[in-house]
């Protein structure tokens, strides 16, 4: 900015910003990768919402078992990488915030309407983009300093962000094409005053930006994948490690300690008017199966574990229900999310879908769902119901 000393403070003008780094040539190139990150985060987010439907119109396959895990990893990695990209993008175009538009006359001119619409669409884009990234980052540490539903608002704003991004690309398409057809150091699309060399070259700033995006993704969101976990020094979770499998809601938080520790607990299996009650010892006497399956949370963390227990299809068979039944699972948990889920027919029928009694060889801990929990392949963690009280064949 010019004339920092001596003069009266005034609102800056676009011409005050002299760095040749604040250029469309950089904005377009950073924006291109930012757009890819937003598209990835959007698609994986929509898939995650779909996966949480009780009765999706098209069933989600149970294989590959790691599908949802990779989906969530892509979601948090692309969202986290988008933060530095968005910051650099906004830095390169910041002077445009101070561009003077046409003077409003008595009758609004076409040019004025155009400027108002364009700026309005950018305001919506920037607002929704900052909303998505800030709320997403807070959600990872289960920090909710707001009064709206994270899930509802993050989902609705995702559509607003991606829609206004499409509008923005549409409006800027001629500029994007012309900038990308020329060299990074071409000044054709620059403001006339943006000529001062920076401390970095344009290529230098781009390289720094890519490095920053990659670093942010790995150190902050790397805890979502075991291969990145050791580098994820600022990640809110561990993908396994000495502390074992992460938990999203402890037994104490869910207020189930008493009910889950009760000696007279039984798992009730219902099919129409038929029902079977099984104590934990009786479940342990049934044929046990061991599977290695990841548990992947909607918040992005995931970890693989070895689960041992009874196949849900074997339990359902005790009531003479068909093996490919839809099964409603109810938890001992009385309030809060994740206290019920529905196993679609393809999940119930899968050999790997267990009512798990043991985790990594040891008896399930209270926090992991003792006396019994559901574990199934390729499902959001929120549907892997803990502290199971009842399995009911719905149809």
């Amino acid at each position, binding site marked *: 900015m010019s004339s920092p000393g001596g003069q009266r403070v005034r609102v800056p003008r676009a011409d005050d910003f002299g760095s040749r780094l604040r250029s469309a040539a950089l904005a377009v190139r950073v924006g291109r990768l930012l757009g890819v990150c937003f598209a990835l985060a959007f698609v994986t987010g929509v898939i995650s919402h779909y996966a949480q439907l009780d009765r999706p119109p098209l069933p989600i396959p149970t294989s590959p078992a790691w599908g949802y895990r990779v989906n969530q990893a892509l979601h948090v990695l692309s969202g986290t990488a988008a933060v*530095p990209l968005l910051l650099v993008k906004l830095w390169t175009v910041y002077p445009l915030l101070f561009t003077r538009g046409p003077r409003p006359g008595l009758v609004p001119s076409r040019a004025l309407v155009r400027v108002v619409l364009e700026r309005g669409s950018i*305001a919506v884009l920037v607002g929704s983009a900052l909303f998505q990234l800030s709320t997403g980052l807070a959600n990872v540490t289960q920090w909710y300093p707001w009064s*709206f539903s994270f899930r509802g608002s993050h989902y609705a704003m995702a559509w607003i962000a991606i829609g206004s991004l*499409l509008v923005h690309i549409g409006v800027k398409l001629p500029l994007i094409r012309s900038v990308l057809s020329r060299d990074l150091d071409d000044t054709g699309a620059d403001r006339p005053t943006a000529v001062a060399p920076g401390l970095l070259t344009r290529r230098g700033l781009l390289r720094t930006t890519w490095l920053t995006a990659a670093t942010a993704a790995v150190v902050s969101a790397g805890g979502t994948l075991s291969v990145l976990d050791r580098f994820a020094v600022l990640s809110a979770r561990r993908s396994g490690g000495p502390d074992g499998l992460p938990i999203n809601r402890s037994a104490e938080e869910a207020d189930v300690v008493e009910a889950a520790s009760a000696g007279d607990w039984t798992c009730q299996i219902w099919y129409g008017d038929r029902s079977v009650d099984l104590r934990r010892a009786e479940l342990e006497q049934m044929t046990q199966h061991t599977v290695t399956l990841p548990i992947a949370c909607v918040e992005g963390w995931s970890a693989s574990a070895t689960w041992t227990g009874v196949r849900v299809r074997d339990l359902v068979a005790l009531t003479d229900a068909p093996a490919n039944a839809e099964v409603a699972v109810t938890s001992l948990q009385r309030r809060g999310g994740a206290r019920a889920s529905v196993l679609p027919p393809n999940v119930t029928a899968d050999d790997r879908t267990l009512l798990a009694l043991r985790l990594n060889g040891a008896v399930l801990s209270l926090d992991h769902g003792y006396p019994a929990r559901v574990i199934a392949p390729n499902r959001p963690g929120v549907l892997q119901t803990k502290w199971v009280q009842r399995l009911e064949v719905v149809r």
Partner: protein
Amino acid sequence: MRGLLVGIGVAVAGYGGWLLVSTQDAAAVRATVLWAVVAVIVHDLVLAPLVIGLGWVVRELVRRTGVGGRVAAALVAALVVLGSVTLVAVPVLGGFGADPRDPTLLPRDYGAGWWLVAGFSVLAGTALAFTGLLSEERPGRSDRGPGAPRRRRPHGS
């Protein structure tokens, strides 16, 4: 093509707006919009001016100490990496959302983690700068020849 993109974009964003107002009550919608508006204000009127101020300080520092272009470039790159990662890690560094009943949430030593990232930022910035990937000995050279778009080799000197 442009009209198509704008048309689809308006429809998709409109669907998002409809989702917002149809799935949440009025107070939650207001809180959502307020969060977005405050986020824009915080960026445009707090964060961006802070970064401009920091940029001015760095340039003055470089001018007064007379350090070379590569040292300056290494400093800028390290600050960009560390500043951005610190911002991303605010919820983690602040321990917001931590719950003593769940030791698997925020299980790491994040102070040590931040210093590791700081060290990495300096090392990576220095490595990039001193292999000539961030700055040039003669800045602005490629702007001279009018109408000569060519791909420069960044470390040709």
